[in-house]
């Protein structure tokens, strides 16, 4: 059973030197001075060493999940996550913990150099302990990265579903990117809320920016359109590229009940017609006058 007792005693006795050696090797190792100042690095090393020394003497390395390890693990996790956010690479993050090895090994050698068996067993303890710590560091680093990615995804979801008002009573939803279930839910909610807020009778869903339409995406679109219809708004689907039209027919998706247009402009024209409006060109003299008025307004 490997316990930390003697190792911790050794560490405590030689604390200052180990920290000094460690910070020395930290400085020479591939550390990023542009991301973390030397002083911060040293204080982080000192804090971590203090936390390690405070681990109860009877703690077993095999029980890395036990509460005794918690303060050290938490500290390593916090440091790793902050490094992930700062832009450190995984290697650089792991090296922070790993670079304590030479310092500890050197100390152990000085203490037990005359007794090879003891030396070996102490080095084994220190080695497995530091390895566990560095694995934990890498794991926390990846966890931190994952959280960053998840947050970015969320942000993108919010950003990627803008509802724009084209005219009084006509809203458009330009969709960009792949539609999955989570995103469709946001799209649906945003569109329906916009219909209520702007009191719009017609909503145009433009899928020019949607790279692929499969049965699932089509089903999501149909659901959104049906929900809008239940609220009393008509939906027009626009921006259907030729390839997507072919896919839709090959997949046997039925869009018969829905007004579809190739271009957003066509959909807008239809929307204007549905709300009793029309865009007309004005003739020569009037046009010149209108242009002059527009310029004057600027």
């Amino acid at each position: 059973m490997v316990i930390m007792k003697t190792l911790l005693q050794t560490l405590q006795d030689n604390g200052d030197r180990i920290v000094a050696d460690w910070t020395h090797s930290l400085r020479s190792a591939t550390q990023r001075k542009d991301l973390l100042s030397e002083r911060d690095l040293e204080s982080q090393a000192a804090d971590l060493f203090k936390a390690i020394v405070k681990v109860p003497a009877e703690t077993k390395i095999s029980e890395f999940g036990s509460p005794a390890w918690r303060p050290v693990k938490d500290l390593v996790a916090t440091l790793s996550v902050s490094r992930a956010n700062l832009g450190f690479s995984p290697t650089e993050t792991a090296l922070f913990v790993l670079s304590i090895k030479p310092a500890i090994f050197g100390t152990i050698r000085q203490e037990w150099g005359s007794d090879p068996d003891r030396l070996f067993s102490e080095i084994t303890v220190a080695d497995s302990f530091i390895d566990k710590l560095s694995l934990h560091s890498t794991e926390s680093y990846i966890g931190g990265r994952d959280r960053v990615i998840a947050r970015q995804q969320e942000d993108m979801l919010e950003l990627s579903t803008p509802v724009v008002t084209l005219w009084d009573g006509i809203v458009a939803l330009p969709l960009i990117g792949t539609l999955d279930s989570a995103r469709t839910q946001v799209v649906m909610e945003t569109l329906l809320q916009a219909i209520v807020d702007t009191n719009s009778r017609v909503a145009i869903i433009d899928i020019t920016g949607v790279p692929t339409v499969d049965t699932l995406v089509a089903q999501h679109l149909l659901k959104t359109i049906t929900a809008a219809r239940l609220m009393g708004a008509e939906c027009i689907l626009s921006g259907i590229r030729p390839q997507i039209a072919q896919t839709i027919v090959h997949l046997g998706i039925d869009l018969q009940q829905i007004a579809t247009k190739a271009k957003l402009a066509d959909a807008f024209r239809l929307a204007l017609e549905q709300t009793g409006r029309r865009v007309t060109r004005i003739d020569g003299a009037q046009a010149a006058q209108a242009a002059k008025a527009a310029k004057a307004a600027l």
Partner: protein
Amino acid sequence: MERIPILRIGTFLLVTIQVDMHDQLALTLQEDLTSMIARVSAGGVLIDISSLEIVDSFIGRTLANIASMARVLDATTVVVGMQPAVAITLVELGMSLPGIRTALNVESGMQYLRDTLADREDEDDWRDYSPQG
């Protein structure tokens, strides 16, 4: 017993649901409304569900039933002001209510009813003045 009031405006009936619908209330409404349509020979029914926040498949089906029954009695039904959450729920329940007319609010629903009834009167006029008439 709790009832949902039915208001008569000209040839239209206006029903505003302002309480949580439970099954018995929906059935009572269905009965009251059909008998009212028959009694006053209403041309249109406007059901305002803008205050309705919770809906289940039974309520959805009852709404569809009311619309179908009204159609048999020669009245057009418009459901107005459905909340986004309610619409999403109905769609997720697989109830797209294909037979029901919808509108954003009471005003546009009323406009729709006026337009359709005007069309119908036009047709009647045309029939009156046709050579056979």
